């Protein structure tokens, strides 16, 4: 009898890398603005649908389409910051107020997607049969999934390098530590936060596109991504970028191994139980930096 474990490990890693992409943007934005931007989930969906529109409706090349999807996601993220969140920060709105606004924008944008593209499930992979499949230790991984994994690693590494070595990265860290002090030493915080929104939203767009090629897209996908992203973020400790990635992979493993014995539609419930456990045992997150 063949073991199912290699397959479960592969599935866990793929799920973990997609969740970590969502969480990365979440935490970057939280780190600089101190609010949980729930619009982030729908921004990922916008990435997927942007690519879908170019690919199917305008019959463009696959790379052009992917690029377009990422740009649209980044643009919407930037626009939301410029038109909504920046004026609200200027008014000294509390983080709860910003959270409610982002929830409202999430609902509105999700409905707009459904109006334009209908609520049907769509896939970005045109010829599913022609996708190459590889076997590792008895587990199956598709070409698409290998690309997803490599992209996720590439993004994480380059983000890590950016945070450490570039001026932008240092400015982001400075704002996360103390926005007022960062302003005093001459950092244009609004400009940096706008850049954070662009980067975070672009990464979310990549996650949405990855899901589109791996399984498919639907208007409500933002909701489930948001759900996983939020859980990974709390597990990792809100605002902790590395913790978020660890939380995302932990979540990927637990839910994929969880459905080993019970049926697949309970994945979300398993994820939620993990969240509750963490809230009870370690409310500060895996690394427990702050409470």
């Amino acid at each position, binding site marked *: 009898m063949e073991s199912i474990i290699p397959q479960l490990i592969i599935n866990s890693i793929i799920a973990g890398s997609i969740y970590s992409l969502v969480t990365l943007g979440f935490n970057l934005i939280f780190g600089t603005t101190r609010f949980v931007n729930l619009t982030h989930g729908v921004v990922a969906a916008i990435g997927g649908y942007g690519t879908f529109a170019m690919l199917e409706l305008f019959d463009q090349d696959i790379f052009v389409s992917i690029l377009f999807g990422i740009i649209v996601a980044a643009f919407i993220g930037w626009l939301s910051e410029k038109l909504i969140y920046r004026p609200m920060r200027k008014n000294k709105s509390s983080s709860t107020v910003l959270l409610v*606004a982002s929830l*409202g924008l999430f609902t509105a944008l999700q409905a707009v997607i459904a109006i334009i593209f209908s609520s049907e499930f769509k896939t970005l992979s045109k010829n599913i049969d022609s996708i190459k499949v590889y076997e590792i230790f008895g587990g199956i991984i598709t070409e698409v999934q290998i690309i997803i994994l490599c992209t996720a690693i590439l993004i994480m590494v380059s983000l890590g390098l950016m945070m450490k070595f570039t001026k932008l990265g240092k400015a982001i860290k400075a704002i996360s530590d103390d926005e007022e002090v960062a302003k005093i030493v001459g950092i244009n915080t609004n400009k940096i936060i706008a850049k954070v929104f662009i980067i975070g939203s672009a990464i979310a767009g990549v996650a949405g596109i990855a899901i589109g090629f791996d399984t498919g897209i639907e208007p409500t996908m933002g909701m489930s991504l948001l759900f996983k992203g939020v859980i990974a973020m*709390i597990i990792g400790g809100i605002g902790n970028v590395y913790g978020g990635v660890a939380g995302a992979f932990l979540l990927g493993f637990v839910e994929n191994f969880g459905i080993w014995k019970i049926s697949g539609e309970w994945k*979300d419930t398993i994820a939620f139980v993990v969240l509750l456990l963490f809230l009870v045992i370690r*409310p500060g997150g895996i690394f427990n930096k702050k409470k």
Partner: protein
Amino acid sequence: MEYLIHLAILISIWSMLAMSLNLILGYTGLLSITHAAFFGIGAYATAISMTVYDINFFLSILIGILVAGVVALLFGLILARFKGDIYALATFGLNIIIFSIFLNWQEVTRGPLGIPGIGRPEIFDFVFKSNLYFLILVSVFAFLIYLISEYIVKSSFGRVLQAIREKESTIQVFGYRTHFFKLTIFVISACIAAVAGSFFASYITFIDPSTFSLNESIFILAIVILGGLANNKGVFVGTVFLIMLPEILRFVGFPTDIAAQMRQVVYGLLLVGLMMYRPQGLLGKFKL
């Protein structure tokens, strides 16, 4: 006339939901995004009790209250330790999970097929069959809930809640165990939402999971924030406005499925606009 009665019934049901959310959000200052879940628990309790076990409607309300109360208690034990973002995000998760239970626990809820043929309330051989009688019954209940929540917020218990809203650590210094207060109001609020669910199931006679998704919680949130936090009269205004809104959209002539999405766009943007320009809502007494 029949149409106006229909709207009035919807307004009564949703004002119960909004008043119960106001206890948590307006008076205690905690952002809970899970009200549709308890609304759904009440609706399913009534639907299953009445269609499968042939239990009287009024008894099924009690069952709904009980189930919602127990779920809220178990979850609240964990939840009450938190406030702010984590409180909001955890309740957000709870709604998604309870929705997925409605959808996937098919032996009990029949999943996406839903439960048809739910009866009208009946007492001493009198059936609230016509919509007018139903309206009288549901508005009496809504008024009772109004009295109960006014009583709660004006009692000493309610004053502690409002103190928690203003500054939790201060009231802790005076020796109040705020966790207990946060837990209690969460359970009370869940029970009231379940009552609304029972009436909804009996009125519509058919329920399926789609009514109890996160979007419905956001809708209830929009009602409370629009009408006014910590002001039950304001909340009533908010309910009337947001229940009438899709009807207006229908008169404008959008097809039904587009109209449903348009409704989401409108109240989503409404939330954004309120947060930007008037975070306390129209008649609110508290600013988020």
